[in-house]
């Protein structure tokens, strides 16, 4: 497979993953493109690995986490839930519930959000997620567990501690 074939064959899937992670179309395109250009420089090696997606996704995820951390360091931390939570009218209301969860997701630390996206969007198992993030599978399980608990229970600010060595 040539690099061109890979880009045209997998570009949309890569951009979708970037968009689900970032919820920002411009940032998604930036990090997807950066992942591809970095991959191009190592294309011979990536081809030999037989799994280009794993290589590209790892770069993409690192790009997302780095950009999210840079962003968070220059912005005022959330002191409370996004407004959507405050106006959540009825737990049975699916639309309102999703809005609420979207708000909570946006407030999650980037690594926790990444774990959820890889689990519930990319359908990766914990071992694969751990490999992509460079952590242990137990760390992935712990991060996912805390993030899910926060999403389920929170009417308060979401606090999911990031401890890659857990």
């Amino acid at each position, binding site marked *: 497979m040539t690099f061109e074939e890979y880009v*045209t064959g997998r570009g949309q899937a890569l951009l979708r993953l970037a968009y689900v992670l970032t919820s920002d179309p411009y940032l998604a395109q930036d990090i997807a493109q950066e992942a591809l250009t970095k991959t191009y420089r190592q294309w011979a090696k990536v081809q030999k690995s037989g799994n280009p997606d794993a290589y590209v996704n790892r770069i993409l995820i690192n790009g997302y986490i780095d950009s999210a951390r840079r962003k968070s360091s220059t912005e005022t931390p959330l002191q409370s839930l996004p407004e959507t939570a405050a106006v959540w009218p009825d737990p049975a209301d699916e639309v309102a519930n999703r809005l609420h*969860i979207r708000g909570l997701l946006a407030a999650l630390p980037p690594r926790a959000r990444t774990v959820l996206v890889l689990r519930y969007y990319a359908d990766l198992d914990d071992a694969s997620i751990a490999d992509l993030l460079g952590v242990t599978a137990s760390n992935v399980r712990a991060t996912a567990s805390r993030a899910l608990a926060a999403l389920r229970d929170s009417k308060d600010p979401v606090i999911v501690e990031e401890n890659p060595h857990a």
Partner: protein
Amino acid sequence: MPEQTEAQLRAIFADEAQNAPPSSAMEQETLDWANTQDKKKRASTRLVLVAAATAMAVAGISIGVARSGDQAVPAPVVAGQYDMQGPIGSSSATSCVEEYSSPTLKDRAFAFDGTAIAIGPSISDKPGARLTTSGVTFQVNEWFKGGSGDTVTVDMWGFGAASEEYGWPRKVPEGTRLLVSGEPRWGGSPLDQAIAWPCGFTRYYDPQTADQWRAAFSNKDGAAP
């Protein structure tokens, strides 16, 4: 309850994925950038090959080819399965100073069908040479042009770290049978510090291509390689 949250997450992420922007612009920008990088790389390689071509035009030193025997035509070495075919020493990173064809093949100073028996140091590199080559010794199965010995050593460049980038095998295993043509690197007689040319002029052996080479060098009109 946990299942409900997980189901909601799946639905939310699936919805978001559907709202992702189209990737066509990003793909095109990426491929344009990669194309620019390729051009830079080719320009760099072209400099190297032009330097080699220039060096070949310089008449000069007349030592360096290891030859043994002047008369005997050795029995062909059995090549086994011809599972490796086509040119070596060519890739998208290589800019060729001449395109491989019947007329350009006939213009090469030497050409033979040979089986690699050893790899050693270069016979043509000079201090500071931009092409770093290795001397590959072949048992010659058939001369098409430029020689008559049982064995011959010619330089081939691109071995080692750069071999895969330039399409050469990292190592020519003993017994690999090639069709080889090229030039004296610094000018002179055909086998003076001979160097195998890439870009189709050096290829894995197969009987059909060998027939075409034989015809090209024996027939004035030549068969198309």
